[in-house]
């Protein structure tokens, strides 16, 4: 069984609280996301999984009225003080519904690199190919890079989005329920891909599907709302431990289907 102590921390939240206006959505979260591992966030709906995930690349900045206390670190640097564009380049994100842009497959993947200054066509072509290969999509689309990204199937679209995220060469990839809009076959592909990706990236994934967390993740964090509806981190540890011998009875209750 893997041990947290032996891992290298890539991202870290420390005493992190997040407020939507006056509503405390996250309460004093401290958690370390280990490098080259898949960390899953599970918990009942509304416990703040997405909110926590989005804190890592400051996507919550886009929501008016959000305030935070505590600190989030990427490689030891406080993300609040980083340039947000640079941060989001380093911490990529994949969303629940596949959201390719209505552009060609090529342009979808090249979008990020172009933004960040890669203009040279052949550089881009190399990058696009590499990213699509890593996202296990290259074989399926290589003859049709100029087809619209929207014309792909749901599962392919999601892999395209992963390729797009990879193309800017992030260190961390955040995934918010990346397979919940997909059918089981596509879900399977994505899960396999994640296993592949963790060799090169650090992955954090939100899932409402405990089985999925069990299947794909190395570490699992369980969040739960307290009596004030604020999300708390109840337990964090190796996935196997969480699923066989959780140390908190609330975790056990949740994963074994006992509630309230």
């Amino acid at each position, binding site marked *: 069984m893997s041990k947290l102590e032996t891992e290298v921390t890539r991202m870290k939240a420390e005493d992190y609280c997040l407020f939507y206006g006056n509503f405390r959505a996250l309460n004093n979260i401290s958690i370390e996301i280990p490098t080259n591992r898949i960390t899953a966030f599970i918990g009942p709906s509304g416990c703040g999984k997405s909110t926590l995930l989005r804190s890592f690349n400051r996507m919550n900045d886009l929501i008016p009225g959000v305030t935070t206390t505590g600190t989030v670190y990427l490689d030891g640097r406080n993300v609040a003080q980083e340039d947000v564009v640079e941060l989001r380049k380093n911490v990529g994100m994949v969303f629940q519904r596949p959201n390719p842009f209505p552009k060609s497959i090529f342009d979808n993947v090249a979008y990020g690199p172009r933004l960040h200054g890669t203009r040279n066509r052949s550089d881009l072509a190399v990058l696009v190919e590499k990213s699509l290969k890593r996202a296990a999509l290259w074989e399926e689309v290589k003859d049709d890079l100029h087809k619209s990204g929207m014309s792909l199937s749901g599962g392919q679209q999601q892999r395209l989005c992963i390729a797009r995220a990879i193309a800017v060469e992030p260190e961390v990839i955040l995934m918010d329920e990346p397979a919940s809009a997909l059918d089981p076959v596509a879900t399977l592909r994505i899960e396999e891909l994640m296993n592949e990706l963790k060799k090169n990236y650090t992955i954090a994934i939100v899932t409402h599907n405990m*089985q999925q967390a*069990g299947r794909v993740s190395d570490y699992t964090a369980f969040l739960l709302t307290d009596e004030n509806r604020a999300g708390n981190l109840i337990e964090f540890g190796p996935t196997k431990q969480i*699923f*066989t*011998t959780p140390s908190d009875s609330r975790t056990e209750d949740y*994963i*074994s*289907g006992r509630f309230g």
Partner: protein
Amino acid sequence: MSRESFDRELEDVTRNLFQVTGEVRKNLAASVKYLEKRDMQGAAMIIEADEIVNLRCLEIEVQCLNIIATQQPVATDLRLLFSILQISTEIERIGDYAKGIARISLKIGPGKLIKPLLSISRMEEIAGQMLDDAIRAFTEGDEKAARNIPSRDLQIDILYNQVHRELITFIMEKPSNIEQTMMLDWVAHNIERVGDRVVNICERVIFTVTGIPIDLN
């Protein structure tokens, strides 16, 4: 995740385990009693009864398999099922020991025993009580009890050594009795093994409750 139907099925399989344990316990006691009383018919009945125990245990195993396949339990629930599975194996083995004793009974035949079974009965009593207690500890999730029970195995071991030495002395005295004597040694040995099995069950109880596998032998 449907706790209700899961709990219902879990209850069902636990009840079955409890029941089969009761039967095995009965068989074990009876096997020694029939041996003492030289009741050949009784012994034969026990051999037959063990078939039923085997079937019951198989059923429990299948039940566990079904529950895991359809309900996909985790954590304590899963450990519980695992334990039921393993305990039922142990119970089945204990049943085999009872059957073994009954077989020996038959082999010895209806004649009078060369020596009264005082210590062996005592051993059986202790082992049976341990089994009862272990199963109660299991159903009640009583970790403490499970930790205490194994110490009683020592008594059985001591008794067994006593019996064993006694029997060897016996043989030395009357080598012609060797067959029956060795068989009685087997009986004692079987009961001693029951004690070990019960210790295994206690280990399971502790694992179920704490999630930590342990070796009490």
